[in-house]
Each structure stands twice: as structure tokens, then as C-alpha cells.
């Protein structure tokens, strides 16, 4: 369960990215977060990820109050969530295989099981043949799918994706959404997906939260056609 209570975020340079956000997302939901550029979507994710601290209010994920989380405890918390970042954040000097493996090494997965799982998720995102390449020799879309593979490798309870299809063609995008839907359905993973792809939001209907200038503009529980 994700709970935002009267959350505001002001960056050090004075930019107000979020105002008084109240939000409740149940375990197992699949939610789109949409909104114009600069409306605070990434900021919302950074709060969830404990990368930034809320200036006001409280953020709670699976019973953990992120404001009170000690720095020492942050790594442990992060292992329970998977994040696909807008800028991928791949480790440049590791191969695709090693990048995904890293997420499993962190959680002390036994070596053989980990390597098995890496191969599994890489073929889920259709990248088995790029396993030994470095990120720099991958296309934008391939890098993005690596980031997705890494985020789902640990079967996190919460999966947060920022524009996971921003660099993908419509066909591949639909594949990815179906993959996420399957994960959501079969493993009960809560999924938060930030996207600009309105046509996707319209074809795969889900609960949709619309941000604008740091406020929640709309929270359409059954999704909806958005212009």
C-alpha cells in the first residue's frame, strides 16, 4: 500500500514541484500517472524511491514511513521496490547481463539461481541476444528494456516505471504493457507507470492519476479517454 499524506516538495533552488498531494494506492493496483512536462511526476517517483525527502507531509510504502527511514535502512527498503528511471541509469561499465545480475546480487540471490533469473527476464524483454553487450552499444529502446528487466528481476512488491515505453515503437510498447499487466496479475505487484503516451493510456485502461503544476488534477478510477 502506498500512502501520500499532504505531501509537498520544494527543491533547494526554491522550485515547488508538488503541493499538498493526497494519494492512496492499494497493493496490487496498476496506476498510470500522467501530466504535462514539469508537472512533478518524476518528483513523485523520487519521493517513493527515498531519493528525495518530502518537505511536508508523509509518504508511506508498505508500512514504512519514508521520512523516518534512517539512511542505513534505505538500501533494504529499496530492494522491495523496482524502479525504471526516465534516464535508465544503467551501469556503463557492466554488460547488459551484469547490469541485471547486479540487482540480484544485491539481494544475495544464490549465483546459479540469479544467473538463471537474468536469462529469464532478458528474454521476457526480448534482449537475450544482447546479454554480453555494453549499454553504449545498445539502441535507446534496448537500453530502456534493460532497465525494465533489471527492475522486475527481484519480483519487487512495488514496481515504478517512468516512461518505460518512451523510446519504444507502438508494437514493442504494447508488448511491454502486456508484460507489466502479467506481472501485476500473476505476482500481485503494485505498478505505478508514468507516461505521456495517451494512446496507450486509452487502449489499456487503468486507474489514471493526472498531475498538473504539482497538484492532482484528476484521479480517474476506471481510466478514461483523455485528450
Amino acid at each position, binding site marked *: 500500500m502506498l500512502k501520500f499524506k499532504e505531501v509537498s516538495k520544494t527543491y533547494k533552488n526554491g522550485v515547488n514541484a508538488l503541493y499538498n498531494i493526497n494519494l492512496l494506492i492499494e497493493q496490487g493496483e496498476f496506476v498510470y500517472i500522467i501530466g504535462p512536462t514539469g508537472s512533478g511526476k518524476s518528483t513523485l517517483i523520487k519521493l517513493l*524511491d*527515498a*531519493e*528525495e*525527502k518530502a518537505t511536508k507531509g508523509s509518504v508511506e510504502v508498505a508500512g514504512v514511513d519514508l521520512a523516518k527511514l534512517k*539512511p542505513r535502512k*534505505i*538500501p*533494504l*527498503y*529499496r*530492494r522491495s521496490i523496482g*524502479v525504471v*528511471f526516465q534516464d535508465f*541509469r*544503467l*551501469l*556503463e*561499465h*557492466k554488460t547488459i547481463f551484469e547490469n541485471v545480475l*547486479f*540487482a540480484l*546480487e*544485491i*539481494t*544475495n540471490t544464490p*549465483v546459479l539461481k540469479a544467473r538463471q533469473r537474468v536469462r529469464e527476464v532478458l528474454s521476457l524483454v526480448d534482449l537475450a541476444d544482447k546479454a554480453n553487450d555494453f549499454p553504449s552499444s545498445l539502441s535507446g529502446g534496448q537500453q530502456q528494456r534493460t532497465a525494465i528487466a*533489471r527492475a522486475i528481476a527481484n519480483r519487487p512488491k512495488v514496481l515504478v516505471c517512468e516512461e518505460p515505453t518512451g523510446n519504444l515503437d507502438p508494437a514493442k510498447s504494447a508488448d511491454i504493457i502486456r508484460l507489466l499487466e502479467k506481472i501485476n496479475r500473476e505476482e500481485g505487484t503494485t505498478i505505478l507507470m508514468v507516461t505521456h503516451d495517451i494512446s496507450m493510456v486509452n487502449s489499456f485502461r487503468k486507474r489514471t492519476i493526472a498531475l498538473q503544476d504539482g497538484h492532482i488534477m484528476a484521479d480517474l478510477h476506471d481510466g478514461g479517454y483523455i485528450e
Partner: protein
Amino acid sequence: MNITRHVKEGFIGVLRHSAMSVSAATAVMITLVLMSLFLLLTLNLSQITKNVEESVQIHVKIVDGTSMETIDAMKAEIALIPGVKLVTFSDKNAELDRFIAAFGEDGKIFEMYRGEDNPLRDAYLVDVVKNAPLDIIAAKIKLLDAIEGVNYGGDNTLRLVSLMESIQNGGLILVSILWLLAIFLISNTIKITIYSRSEEIHIMRTLGATNHFIRFPFLIEGILIGLMGSILPILLTIFGYQYLYNALGGVLVSNLFILRPIYPMVFQVSGILAGLAVLVGLTGSFISVTRHLRWNR
């Protein structure tokens, strides 16, 4: 915790950032070459100082024809002077031997003075304790009865001894400063190499890696870079000193200064270099990774 994994990661890290690793190892190398040079110098200096100090002797010439009783009495008197360690009597004949020996091969021509014609005098050889005031002791001996002359080498011996001592002390201070600077330089270099990895560290942290997990492979990298950087200095130490020692015949300038034997010194110095490199590589990367970890959430 999986140590094998971390060690492997450390090796991979060094390989994948090879340009950086080589640069850092080069800096370590240069610093250690300096260290080695100074260690070898100081160790030899302390040896040589000891030699010089031990060889300081006051040479007292006795007036020709002095009776054996007087000679023995004076010997006892000299022995009582504060700072005198040992008084040895050396007769004309023995003096000629010493004189000839001092000239090596060329000395042979003085053999003609052997016997009645010997122009030398009976003498005392006075050994003194360390740091004894040579000039004052010499002056006191001179005031005795049947003394023809006293010679301790004059100011130059004083100079030599005090120079050797201050060189040795200065050397020790210098080597201590060098240790500090070397440690600082090496860890600073490793710090710089890790700056360029801050992005990497940040991403790892974002993925939920604990500080310990992130840090361990970097520590291995630090150790490896240290070791890589110490190979050449160690080889230089062992073979360079061996070569110099043999080329100089074990002495520095004409028998006056005896160098330290090659073994086990070169191995001790090598051990110190490798140990220093590893230690500083380790702490250097520990400190700088930790700093990057502190900056991030």
C-alpha cells in the same frame, strides 16, 4: 556476504577502467620509487654513520726514548680522562705497519724505514665513547708529560661526525615527511579516480545496494592498484640496489664507507613498499567511496 563476488568485481573494475587504473598505478609507482630511494639511502646512512663513529680515534705520539714505566703510567692516566673508552699502545714497528697499510700497494716503498731508521714514534691509539668531545680530550692528553703530538683529525673529524649525524637525523625526518606525503599522494590519486565513478556509485545506491556491498569491490580495486604500482619499485629496489652494490664493490667512495649488504635489506624494503601500497590503496578508496556514499541518499 559473498567475498568471491566482490573480489571478482574488484578485478573487473580495474580491467574495465584500465586507463584510469594504469594512471593511478603510475602515480603510486612514482611515489614508491621515491620511497624506496630514500629508505635505501637512510638505511645506508645509519650504517655508515656507525662505521665512522666507531673509527674515530685519537692518535697520540710519544716522545722518542720515553721509558716503559712512563708509557704505562701515561696510558693509565689517559684512560682516566672522561670520554676515553680504550687506550691501546702501538710501538714504532706497529705504527709503520699501519702507515704502510694505509697506503695499500704504494706503501711498500716505506718498508725501507723498518728497524733502526724508523722515523715514526711509539703511540697510543685512544678510542672514545660516542659523542665524546674529541678536541677537549685531545687538549687534555697534550698536557701530559712525554707527549710529542696528539692528532684526532682536527675540525674535519668533528665536522664529519656531526655531519653524518645531522644527515642521519635529517634523513629520518625527511623519510617521515615522505611517508606522510606518499600516503597522502597515493590516497589522493585513488580519490581522484573514484570521483569519475561517482555516477556509478550513485546508481548502485539507487538500486538498493548497501554501503558495504558497494564499497568492497572498490577496496579490492584500491589494493590491486596499490600492488600494480608497487611491482616496478620493488624490482627496482631489488635489482637496482644489487646492481649498484656490485658496481661499487660494496663501498661508497674508496673503502671509506661500507654499504649495507644486499640481503635481507632489499626484501625488507620491498615488503615495506608493498605493504604501504596495499594499505594506502585500501584506505584511499575506503575514504573516498565512503564520502560519495555520504553525499547520496
